């Protein structure tokens, strides 16, 4: 189980790196929004109720991270759908490969890519004046949590791909990435969101993941949001992986 999962994971990473043009949106678009939000809305730190921070870039950095990780999850789903469309998936299931390794391999690749994405934004943020309040340990926590979040989003992308079977359908989920982002506290403090986003964001797991990433960067190593971030991320990984495996079984039954 472990060896085929690693082999499939390495294959997915190699395929991703062979087409770097598909990686550009994962870094470029969140970077553009990060720059625009920081340059345009830094004055909002003066709003009553905004958590005390002198560095709005540090506050916004996790928003760019989760945006990038969600887009990466969508790309993982598109890659799976393309494998189904091209017939590679059918050849894969005739090979002596454990079925779960098909899902696990892709999740391993997503975790590795997610760590790179988060590191990119940490380094980019530091270059442009962000500060990491949690220090080295904070950076490590952010990379680990980001990598786990990437795994969760990839599992969601796969679950959609197994059901949809068409890359264009998965691609069509793109606007929903932003809808989920806007209905969370990824960009702004939860209590300063307008109604009904303030209520919905409390139920949106992405809020807890974003806050878990934000706390070590903007505020320091304060326990509760970080623990909540990890707990919610593990929960999403569990549920989404189950959905992905169920989707895989449905796809196998459909192919039989």
């Amino acid at each position, binding site marked *: 189980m472990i060896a085929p999962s690693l082999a499939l994971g390495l294959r997915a990473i190699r395929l991703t790196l062979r087409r770097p043009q598909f990686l550009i949106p994962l870094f470029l678009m969140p970077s553009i929004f990060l720059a625009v939000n*920081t340059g345009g809305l830094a004055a909002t730190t003066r709003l009553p109720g905004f958590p005390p921070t002198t560095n709005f870039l540090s506050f916004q950095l996790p928003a760019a991270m989760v945006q990038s990780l969600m887009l990466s999850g969508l790309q993982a789903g598109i890659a799976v759908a393309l494998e189904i469309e091209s017939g590679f998936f059918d050849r894969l299931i005739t090979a002596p490969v454990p079925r779960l390794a098909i899902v696990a391999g892709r999740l391993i690749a997503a975790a590795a890519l997610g760590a790179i994405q988060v590191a990119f934004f940490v380094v980019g943020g530091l270059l442009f004046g962000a500060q990491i309040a949690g220090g080295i340990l904070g950076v490590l926590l952010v990379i680990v949590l980001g990598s786990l979040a990437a795994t969760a989003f990839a599992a969601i992308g796969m679950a959609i791909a197994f059901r949809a079977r068409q890359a264009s359908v998965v691609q069509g989920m793109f606007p929903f990435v932003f809808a989920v982002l806007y*209905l969370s506290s990824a960009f702004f403090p939860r209590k300063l969101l307008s109604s009904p986003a303030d209520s919905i964001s409390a139920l949106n797991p992405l809020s807890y993941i974003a806050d878990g990433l934000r706390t070590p960067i903007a505020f320091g190593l304060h326990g509760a949001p970080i623990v909540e971030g990890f707990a919610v991320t593990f929960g999403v990984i569990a549920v989404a992986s189950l959905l992905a495996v169920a989707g895989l079984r449905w796809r196998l039954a459909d192919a039989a």
Partner: protein
Amino acid sequence: MQPDPVTSPASSGAIEHRRMRRGVVDLPAVRALVVRGLNELLRVPGAAIPGIVSPAIFLLGLTLVFGKATQIPGYGTQSFLAFVLPVALLQSAGFTGGATGVNLGRDIEQGWLDRLLLSPAGRGTILTGLVLSAALRVLIPLPALLIIAFAVGAPIPSFIGFVLTIVFVTAFAAVAATWSSVLALKFRSQQASPLMQSTILSSILFSASYAPLSLLQPWMKAIAEHNPVTLILEGMRQCYVGSITWEVTWHAFAALGGTGLVFVLLALRGFGRYER
């Protein structure tokens, strides 16, 4: 030996052909190209969706997230929805205009532009057809977006505000279509579409999109002050925030005209290089 009907100076066909090639716009050919552009939208109605869904999510999302930013003095309104509506409208126009370049890239890949360039229609005619079709296509997402905005509480502009909104949006779609055509002629592939859409989106976002100039960070303010889209955006914004003034209006028209002229010249040069 019979003279070549196209290249012979004595041939009336050749004279006609060259007259058109020199940039005289052939209106029936323009109309045919516009109809072709509109037909694409009728045959694939889903093509209009990016011009509606993304700007609508952007508009509603930003308002929900940053709506309380207007509590900071300087916005000139308590409604962030009203402040950011022109950004969403320009975004819709930009996406629709950008699609023209994507379609031109496809036409180049499939050889359709080569066949079109063999016809008597000159570069000016082809460009006019492409740009006009984009300007008309944006009239489909525009009302949809306005209805969504009004339904969630955006202020309804005056009659002049409506007219200016339509004029600015169609003109911006035309400018975006010209720019995306420049890129399509340069890269000769649909694969340039992310570059088309991202440059158009960036030009909108790196302006006074989220906040007035006075509230932007110094580096952002420097970019926004030199970005002609800021003038266009402020021209549209006056229809929803504050009152309409001639000074802001003509600045917006000048920015549209200036950028449009530069892109038209670049596009015509692109056509010239493509033909060579």
